[in-house]
Structure formats: structure tokens, C-alpha cells
């Protein structure tokens, strides 16, 4: 018998536990030649802000050992353009669309989730409060419990759709921020966003990135991401979407065993645009080989004896 890959998370029914991470899959259409979004657990969009954002000055990416730095700066055309030009492409009801939301004020987060909640294509929101490449009142929201609580409460007041809060690894205690999100009414947390990092060209003594610093992603960060998922799993009751350097089905399984109900794949989409589908197939093979009836049996099953 085929193992069950279906996952229920934050009131969503997903056909499998694999999503594409925000900012690495555009709005899905750019990857149309490689991935049918209806086959994914969900698509998390590139972050939408209320107004158009031009983004940071280039160069915006740099390869590092087993990873990459990026400093895109949330370039996007804003909420109205997203509604007018992007949402229409998601007519297929089999696609689970999670819209990543960014803002400069709590009110902006509230307004975006309110305006998008009326569209039946939208299944849930991921609140991006952890982008390392923009500053909100001089810090990343997800670095502060009070700011996290306030923005989640404001979003909660404005929508009944599931709210996923994306956490930053650039903190002293990620579990503390996860608890703040839970207390404020989040339905799930996703972790981790990128680590702040930089790279220097010694010839010119300039930073390789135009914005000087950027966010580190890729296999280099996976062990830390996994440890953070395990830590958060032991601190809150909300479901977790785990991510950070997942390249293979085996990487994804590690996150699930550590306590993630779902995973998101990011940087690997650049390396292999069809990787998300291969990871789904690999998870299924593992469940068959190890005689699991469903993926749920595996979530948080870390053997600590």
C-alpha cells in the first residue's frame, strides 16, 4: 500500500509536506517548465509588500562555500499588481498558495492580509518578519518578542486564514520568539530565514554585495537550521515548517524527524529547478522502505534514548 504523504497543518490539507520557500520560486510561473505547482504541498510566494519595492543595489548574490549570500531587498511590484497580474494564474484549485507578506508597519501587514483574504486562491499567509535585508524600526521584527507579538496580533485581527510566522535565526533564543508568535495567535511557524553574512573581494577591498551584507542560505546552514527546529519543537505546540539548506529527500527527512510537519526547499531550486518534485518522490520511497503508513508517524520521531 502507498504511504500517505498528506499533511494537515494549521487547518490546511496539503497533498505532501514539501513547499517551495519564499523568494526562491518567484510566483511559480517562472518555474512552469520544470514544476507543476499543483504537485507541491504548497507554493510560498515571493514576499508581497503594500507598495512596489525597487530592491537593493546589485550585485545581489554571491556564492560561498556550500551556500550563497543574497541581498535582494524584497523587490516586488506591490499588492495591487500582485492581485491584478499574478493571482489570476492560480485558477487551479489543486494549487495551495501561501502568500508571503512583508510590511514597513503593522498596519501594512494587516491591510495586505485583509485585502488578500477575499481571494479563494489564497490558502494561507506567511508573515515575513525576518528578512535580513530590510530594516523595520532599526531591527528585524523577529528579533524582538514584543514586535513579533504586535505584528502577529494585527494580522490575526485582519484574517481568518491560517497565519504562518517566519522566524529569524539571527537571535539569541529562537524559541522565545516562537512562543511570542504562538501567544499572539499564529497557526504555525516556519524556520529558518537566512543568516546575516558577508563576503569581501580582497582585490578591491569592497563587499561583494552591493548592500554590503546579505542572507546566507544553502547546505552550509542546514545543521543550525535543524537544531533550531528541534529547539522550537520542544518549546511550542504549533506545527513547524522546517527549512534551511535542504537539498535532498534525506535532508527533508532530517527536518521532519526533528519535528517539522512540513519542509520548504529554497536554494536548491536554483541548483536544480525540479528538485522539489524529486524530494517528494524520495520521501515517499523512504516511507515505503521503512514501512511507515504515513508521513505523520515520522514528525518529531527523533530517537533520543
Amino acid at each position, binding site marked *: 500500500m502507498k504511504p500517505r504523504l498528506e499533511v494537515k497543518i494549521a487547518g490546511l490539507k496539503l497533498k505532501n509536506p514539501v513547499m517551495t520557500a519564499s523568494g*526562491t520560486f*518567484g510566483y511559480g510561473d517562472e518555474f512552469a517548465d520544470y514544476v507543476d505547482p499543483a504537485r507541491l504541498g504548497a507554493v510560498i510566494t515571493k514576499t508581497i509588500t503594500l507598495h512596489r519595492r525597487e*530592491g537593493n*543595489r*546589485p550585485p545581489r*548574490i554571491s556564492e560561498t562555500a556550500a551556500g550563497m549570500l543574497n541581498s535582494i531587498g524584497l*523587490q516586488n511590484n506591490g499588492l495591487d499588481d500582485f492581485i491584478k497580474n499574478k493571482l489570476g494564474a492560480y485558477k487551479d484549485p489543486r494549487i495551495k498558495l501561501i502568500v508571503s507578506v512583508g510590511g514597513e508597519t503593522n498596519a501594512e501587514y494587516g491591510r495586505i492580509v485583509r485585502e488578500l483574504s477575499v481571494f479563494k486562491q489564497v490558502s494561507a499567509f506567511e508573515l515575513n518578519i525576518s528578512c535580513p535585508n530590510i530594516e523595520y524600526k532599526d531591527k528585524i521584527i523577529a528579533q524582538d518578542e514584543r514586535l513579533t507579538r504586535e505584528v502577529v496580533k494585527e494580522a490575526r485581527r485582519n484574517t481568518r486564514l491560517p497565519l504562518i510566522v517566519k522566524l529569524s535565526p539571527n537571535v539569541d533564543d529562537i524559541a522565545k520568539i516562537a512562543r511570542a508568535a504562538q501567544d499572539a495567535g499564529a497557526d504555525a511557524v516556519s524556520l529558518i530565514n537566512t543568516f546575516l553574512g558577508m563576503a569581501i573581494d580582497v582585490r578591491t577591498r569592497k563587499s561583494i554585495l552591493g548592500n554590503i551584507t546579505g542572507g546566507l542560505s544553502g547546505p552550509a546552514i542546514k545543521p543550525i537550521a535543524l537544531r533550531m527546529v528541534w529547539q522550537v519543537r520542544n518549546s511550542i505546540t504549533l506545527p513547524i515548517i522546517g527549512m534551511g539548506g535542504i*537539498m535532498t529527500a534525506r535532508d527533508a527527512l532530517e527536518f521532519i524527524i526533528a519535528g517539522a510537519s512540513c519542509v520548504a526547499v529554497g536554494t536548491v531550486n*536554483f541548483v536544480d529547478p525540479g528538485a522539489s518534485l524529486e524530494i517528494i518522490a524520495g520521501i515517499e520511497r523512504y516511507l515505503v522502505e521503512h514501512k511507515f503508513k504515513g508521513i505523520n508517524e515520522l514528525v518529531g520521531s527523533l530517537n533520543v534514548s
Partner: protein
Amino acid sequence: MKCEVLSNVFLKERRLLLDLAVPAGFAAASPGQFLHIRIEDSCDPLLRRPLSIHDYCASGKKNGVVVRVLYEVVGKGTALLSEKKPYSEIDCLGPLGSGFDMEKIAGYKNVYIIAGGMGVAPLFFLVRKIMECKVKSVKCKVAVLLGVKTKNDILREKEFKDLGCQVHIATEDGSKGFKGRVTELLKEKLQPRSIICACGPKPMLAAVSEIARSNNVPAQVSLEEFMGCGLGACLGCVIRTTSGYKRICHDGPVFDSSEIIWKD
């Protein structure tokens, strides 16, 4: 898609010509497009390398097609690529990007091709395609200006001549042809009612754009940048234009020079 290596040979120190057999299902390439190559199935180097298509032509075998890449060893990725042997396979995405506007080029009597160093890579395919059309349209003149530091860096001179176009050399040290920058040579040679197609370092392309603007001729320039996805999704490889940041991988790599804002 996996492409078989047919040959991978040094033309000059650090500069190689890679021939790949194009598998069935690979879309036909047009001049200015690129391949996004995964060099190793490993985490380091992690990202793909965007490399210009140097030519795309029949292989000689029945229905066989070759895609050709001219590249320079500059870092870890290209060093590994230079070690690839015939019969090995390389994972390629492509052809990707928006190339030269062939229809627009066809409308001009004089075409100036400006190559700065390795910028020659995408221009050979372009010139071959223009020369193919030239047979049909009379009186079109194609001049190729190859700019290099020293004569040992000159690539594809004979191949361009074999296509039947004029080739002019500019060396910075004066070891062959015009002594000075290729953009200075362009200023000397440029005729009215022309179009310019250029690829090379950014400062050279900025200079070409300025020459085109002051002489009131159009120019198409091919840009280069580090890339993430290569598909237009990640917004990692952008250039500032008169209508905001555009994606080099998807909106380019070839742009009309008048829309590029060269200053940082």
C-alpha cells in the same frame, strides 16, 4: 537536461571551447542566449554557471546538433569544467534568456560587432546568423572589432574571417592592429546608418553606449552577472534601467543600450 561532452579543448591559455551534443527536446537557441550549467553534482561549487552560447549548429552526425561554449577559467567552477572529458555528461538548463533582436539588426546596412576580451563568446553565433541572412539581403556590411589586452588574447579571428566579414583588432599594448581600446577604434570606424552589437566588460559597454548615443545609432549590449536561478525568479542578477531593475537572465542578457543606467 544532460548533455554529452563531445570535446573540451584549450584554444589558448585558460580559454577553452566546449562542444556539447544537444539532446532531443532541447529548444533551438538564438544568438545572445545562454546555458545555465551545473558543473558538478556537489554542494561546492553550489550554483550553476551561466555561459554564453558561442554557436549552435549541425554536428555532422545525422540530425545531430551541437551547442558550443567558449569560456575562460576564472575560478573553481570553470576550473572543474575545464577538466571535463569527452563522453562525460553535464547538466544544462537552456537555452535561456532573451538574445539579440535579429529583426532589428536586419534593417541596418552596417553592423558593428564589438567584442571586449571574452565578450567574443556570444558574438560568433550572432555574426554567423547575420551572415546567413546577408546572402539574401544585399549590401549589408559586417565589421567585427576584437578588443584585447595583447595579441596572444585574440580569439576566433580566423573563424570570423572565414564567415566573410571584416575583422579589426585593437590591442591595448599595440602588439597587433590598432593600439588602444576597442571603443577608440569603434569611434574611428563608425559610419552613419549603422547598428552596434557589443559584449564585454561593463565599462566597455558603457563606453559603447555613449558612442552609440552621441552618433545617434542604436546598440544592443549583452550583459553578464552572477546568477541564481537563471529563470527570472530570484531577482539576483539585475541591472538598473530607465524602467527600474531588470533581470539579466530573463529580460536580457541582451538589452538596448539606451535603457541601461550605467552609473552605480
